[in-house]
């Protein structure tokens, strides 16, 4: 067996909570306190383990994804690999030249031109001047900034800035490339090109460690993945299975730390005040983690400050940053609600949620149709984790069937394993009904 390119051997990393001494006055006062308290209870409580005995290795030329909820320790892993942090326990080994893309354009200086920054950042990433000169055209071309090459980067758009940063890093030609969630910048075309570039590097034998929340992209680039949760390895193995573990970790994160459901940012002039949004299954059990083929009901409970005879309710769902994937408005369905003062509940039933696995967020809006006034508009903060059971990547998870055509005859080869009533594209909008 060849030597792994990256080896993480029972690595632990502890951080101190709260501020360390940033000024001498703090140091003096804490020193005085320590003298009086005789070192009582300074350990343990004010530190926390960002990583605890994390163990994995990456073979040479392999691409491995690192996924997990926020705060799971993903970035800490990368910083340990890059040598920026030092582990408090265990051993980190990296074999070969390493380039880390932890933040796009970390070394950029706004006053310098694009060209100057390419040389500076290239040097920071470990390229020699000769190498940079050789790759200059390719870097500029990939970033698409030819016309602005001699302009100070402080006048660049954020997209140009990010493109240039990624372009430089991807031309370092390292043995090991660390990438931390950078592809969420730039437009769709650039994101595709970044993904292509990563594919290309992996094909050429670069070892890749990729931290991301984008499960699709992770699955398309990495065959293996490590799932972290609260600083521990939850799963390490095939990326498809990893996604399931990730989603479970996500749903656990939400059950243990429920979002504060009471609206704190309402305006008093609005008639409705949100009390609660719940997702329940057919049996009426509350859920934070659903399978995309299961029936699901969203229940919106709110308090009316005054009666509204024609209330329009809208529920929207989006993935972390994108536009709405689903927007269902009772008004468009020709349905309004006559609600009295006090606590009310409106429920929306969906026969299935045919989206691919991932984390989604919902919001609620309400209008008074008579006055044309907005009576409620919450942020997208009601989470729902959907598990497609590994059947889809992309945006939707549609009911489908595979066949081969032979001499005009249709012979079924494989059928999607979905058992319940077929969900056709567009069905989600037709089959909904409000109670």
């Amino acid at each position, binding site marked *: 067996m060849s*030597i792994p390119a990256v080896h993480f051997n029972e690595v632990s990393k502890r*951080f*101190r909570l709260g501020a*360390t*001494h*940033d*000024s*001498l*006055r703090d*140091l003096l006062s804490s020193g005085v306190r320590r003298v009086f308290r005789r070192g009582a209870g300074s350990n343990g409580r004010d530190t926390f383990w960002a990583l605890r005995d994390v163990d994995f290795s990456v073979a040479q030329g392999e691409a491995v994804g690192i996924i997990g909820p926020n705060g799971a320790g993903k970035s800490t892993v990368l*910083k340990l690999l*890059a*040598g*920026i*942090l*030092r582990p408090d326990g265990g051993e*980190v*080994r*990296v*074999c*070969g*030249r*390493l380039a*880390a893309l*932890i*933040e796009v354009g*970390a*070394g950029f*200086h706004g*006053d*310098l031109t694009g060209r*100057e920054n390419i*040389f*500076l950042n290239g*040097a*920071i*990433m*470990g390229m*020699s*001047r000769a190498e940079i000169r050789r790759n200059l055209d390719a870097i500029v071309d990939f970033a698409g900034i030819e016309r602005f090459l001699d302009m100070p980067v402080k006048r660049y758009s954020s997209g140009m800035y990010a493109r240039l940063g990624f372009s430089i890093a991807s031309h370092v030609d390292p043995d090991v490339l660390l990438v931390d969630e950078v592809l969420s910048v730039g437009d769709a075309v650039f994101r595709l090109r970044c993904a292509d570039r990563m594919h290309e590097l992996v094909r050429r034998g670069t070892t890749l460690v990729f931290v991301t929340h984008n499960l699709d992209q992770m699955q398309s680039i990495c065959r293996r993945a490590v799932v972290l949760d609260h600083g521990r390895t939850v799963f390490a193995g095939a990326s498809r299975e990893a996604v399931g573990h990730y989603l479970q970790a996500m749903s656990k994160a939400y059950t243990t730390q429920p979002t504060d459901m009471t609206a704190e940012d309402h305006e008093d002039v609005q008639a409705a005040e949100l009390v609660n949004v719940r997702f329940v299954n057919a049996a009426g059990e509350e859920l934070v983690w659903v399978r995309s083929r299961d029936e699901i009901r969203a229940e919106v409970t709110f308090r009316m400050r005054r009666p509204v005879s024609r209330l329009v309710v809208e529920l929207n769902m989006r993935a972390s940053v994108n536009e709405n994937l689903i927007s269902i408005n009772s008004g468009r369905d020709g349905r309004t609600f006559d609600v009295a003062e006090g606590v009310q509940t409106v429920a929306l039933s969906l026969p299935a949620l045919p989206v691919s696995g991932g984390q989604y967020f919902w919001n609620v809006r309400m209008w008074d149709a008579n006055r044309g006034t907005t009576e409620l508009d919450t942020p997208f903060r009601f989470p729902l984790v959907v598990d497609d059971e590994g059947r889809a990547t992309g945006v939707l998870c549609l009911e489908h069937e595979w066949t081969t055509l032979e001499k005009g005859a249709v012979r079924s080869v494989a059928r999607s394993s979905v058992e319940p009533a077929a969900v056709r594209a567009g069905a989600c909008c037709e089959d909904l009904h409000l109670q």
Partner: protein
Amino acid sequence: MRALATSGGPWEVLGYRELLLSLTWRDLRVRYKQSLLGIAWAVLLPLSMMLVFTFVFTRAIDARSVLHVDMPYALFAYAGLVPWTFFSMSLSGCVNSLVANRNLVTKVYFPREVFPLSCVGSCLVDFGIAMSVLVGLMVFFHLRGDWAFVPSWALMFLPVVLLVQITLTVGVGMLLAMANLFYRDVRQIFGVVIQLWMFVSAVVVPVPRDGTWLATLISLNPLVPLIGAYRDCVIYGRMPAATGFVYATVVAVILLAGGWVCFRRASYKFAECI
């Protein structure tokens, strides 16, 4: 197989020469970008200071009796101010070098010594430019007949003097950069201390040599023999006094060694504590 970058030996920084040059170049470029006079400031700064002090000590106040200077005062002041500016500008760059590059410290790995070193490097370029003007100044006073300049072999000793100064500056600079990362008060204290330091380093006024305890204390300042050495080599054309210069060299080497060891020991905490 190469072990992780952090475990690279103390000479690791030598492998990052190109990066050091790039960052030095960046410091210079940024310092003089968007300024009309650009790199001319390297000369204008000590030159204008020289004019200020010449005016103060030879016109505004009657200080000739206290200044036992046996050469044109402008020459004395400029020859002191150029190495002093190199020293003080380097250190004030070093103090901030880690904190100002927080983005790089927390996001990219390379030996952290590169930051203070590049500060000193960019000030060294300024020093070279300002030093060349000293030659012009000497020609000027020679032609006016105020000072007879005799070229001497002692000039060959100048690189050694410079090397000792760089050693001292890097040593102190590393300590300051590191200290300011952990405690931001260091920068404020430094601002006060550097002012005082200038007046006890024989930069614009000679230090007292009257045997009082204060004079003894001041003579412990390694910059006194160092700055004196510049005047000896360039203007007087003689070798600097051995005792003072050897003392300065020893102090410089100790500070560099101590500063470097401390810096390396602490550097793995930089990204967490910045």
